[in-house]
C-alpha cells in the first residue's frame, strides 16, 4: 500500500504536496508516482522538455525527464530535510539515468550550496536514503555496462522489482530480470528485501 501521486505540472518538492507527505508519514506509507501516459500531452500535465513530441517513441523515451526534474526539485526544496522519514518511489521512469544525475547533483551542490543551504548532505545521500525506483523498464545493455550502472545507482539498495506484464514493453518476469541480475543476494534484495523495508508489515510475506 502506498499513496500514488500522478504527476502534474507542479513539482513534487512544492509545498502544495506537503499535507500529503505529512499524511503519508503519519500513516507510515511511501509515496509513489507512476507514469500515467498523459505526460507532455495537455496543458497541466507534467511537461516534457523541448515541447510537444511528434511521435510516441519520443515521448516514451523522454518520460524519465519528468522523474529527473521532480527528483532534483524534491532534493533542492529540502523535502527530505523537512520530512526525513518520507520515502518516494518512482515507478516506470527507468533508472539507468540516475548515476550521472547523482554525480551532477553532487557536483552542482558543491558549487552552488549557498543558494539552498538547507541541503545539508550531498544530494546522492538523500537519493540513497529516501528514493526508490522500480526495475521496469530496464534499459538493457551489455552485462558489463549494466553492472557498472547498477553500482552507480546503488541499485542493490534502491531498486524494487516490477515487470509491467502484460504491457507491450514489459520486462518478461521470468527472463529479463534473471538474465541481468545474476547474483542471488542482489536478486533477493530487489525481489523481496527492499520492498519489505519500505512497505513493512503491510506487505504480506509468504
Amino acid at each position: 500500500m502506498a499513496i500514488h501521486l500522478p504527476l502534474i505540472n507542479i513539482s513534487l518538492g512544492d509545498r502544495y504536496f506537503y499535507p500529503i507527505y505529512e499524511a503519508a508519514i503519519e500513516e507510515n506509507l511511501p509515496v509513489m508516482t507512476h507514469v500515467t501516459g498523459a505526460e507532455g500531452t495537455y496543458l497541466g500535465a507534467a511537461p516534457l522538455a523541448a515541447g510537444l513530441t511528434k511521435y510516441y517513441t519520443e515521448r516514451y523515451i523522454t518520460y524519465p525527464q519528468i522523474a529527473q526534474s521532480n527528483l532534483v526539485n524534491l532534493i533542492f526544496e529540502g523535502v527530505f530535510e523537512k520530512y526525513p522519514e518520507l520515502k518516494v518511489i518512482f515507478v516506470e521512469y527507468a533508472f539507468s539515468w540516475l548515476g550521472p544525475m547523482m554525480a551532477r547533483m553532487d557536483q552542482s551542490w558543491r558549487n552552488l550550496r549557498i543558494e539552498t543551504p538547507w541541503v545539508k548532505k550531498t544530494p546522492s545521500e538523500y537519493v540513497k536514503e529516501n528514493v526508490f525506483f522500480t526495475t521496469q523498464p530496464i534499459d538493457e545493455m551489455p552485462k558489463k555496462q549494466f553492472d557498472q550502472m547498477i553500482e552507480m545507482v546503488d541499485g542493490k539498495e534502491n531498486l524494487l522489482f516490477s515487470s509491467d506484464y502484460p504491457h507491450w514493453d514489459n520486462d518478461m518476469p521470468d527472463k529479463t530480470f534473471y538474465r541481468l541480475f545474476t547474483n542471488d543476494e542482489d536478486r533477493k534484495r530487489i525481489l523481496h528485501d527492499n520492498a519489505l523495508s519500505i512497505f513493512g508489515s503491510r506487505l504480506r510475506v509468504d
Partner: protein
Amino acid sequence: MGGIVIQMDYKIGKVSEFTTNKCHIINIKGRSIAIYRSKETFYAVRNRCPHKGAEICKGDFRGTMLPSNPNELNYGLEEQVVVCPWHGYEFDVKTGNALFNLTKLKLKTYDVYQKNGELYIKI
C-alpha cells in the same frame, strides 16, 4: 626520510597598508599568498584554490548561508569565509578546511602576526 621544515618569518609590510576592503597579494619564495584583514585580525592563505587552481584572491571574503531549515536563510561566519571565484567553493579562512564537507581538499593557510606596526608571515 623525514625532512626538516624550516619556518621563517617574513616582514610583508606596514599594518596600515593592508586595508579591510580587499584581498592583498604578496609573493614570497615564489608563492602567491592572499592576505585578508578582518575587523579583528589578519589571515593569510595560498592564492590558489586546491580544487582547480583559481586565484582565491579574486573571490569574495565574506560570511555565508549556514545550514538551515528548508526555505530559511541564516547568514553567519562573517569575515571567516574565502570563496573561490570559479566554482564557489567556500573555505574557512582560519583552517583552510572546506565548509560543510563540500570537499576534502584543503586551502593552505599561513600564520600572520603584527609587531611594531609591521605585518609578518610565517612560511
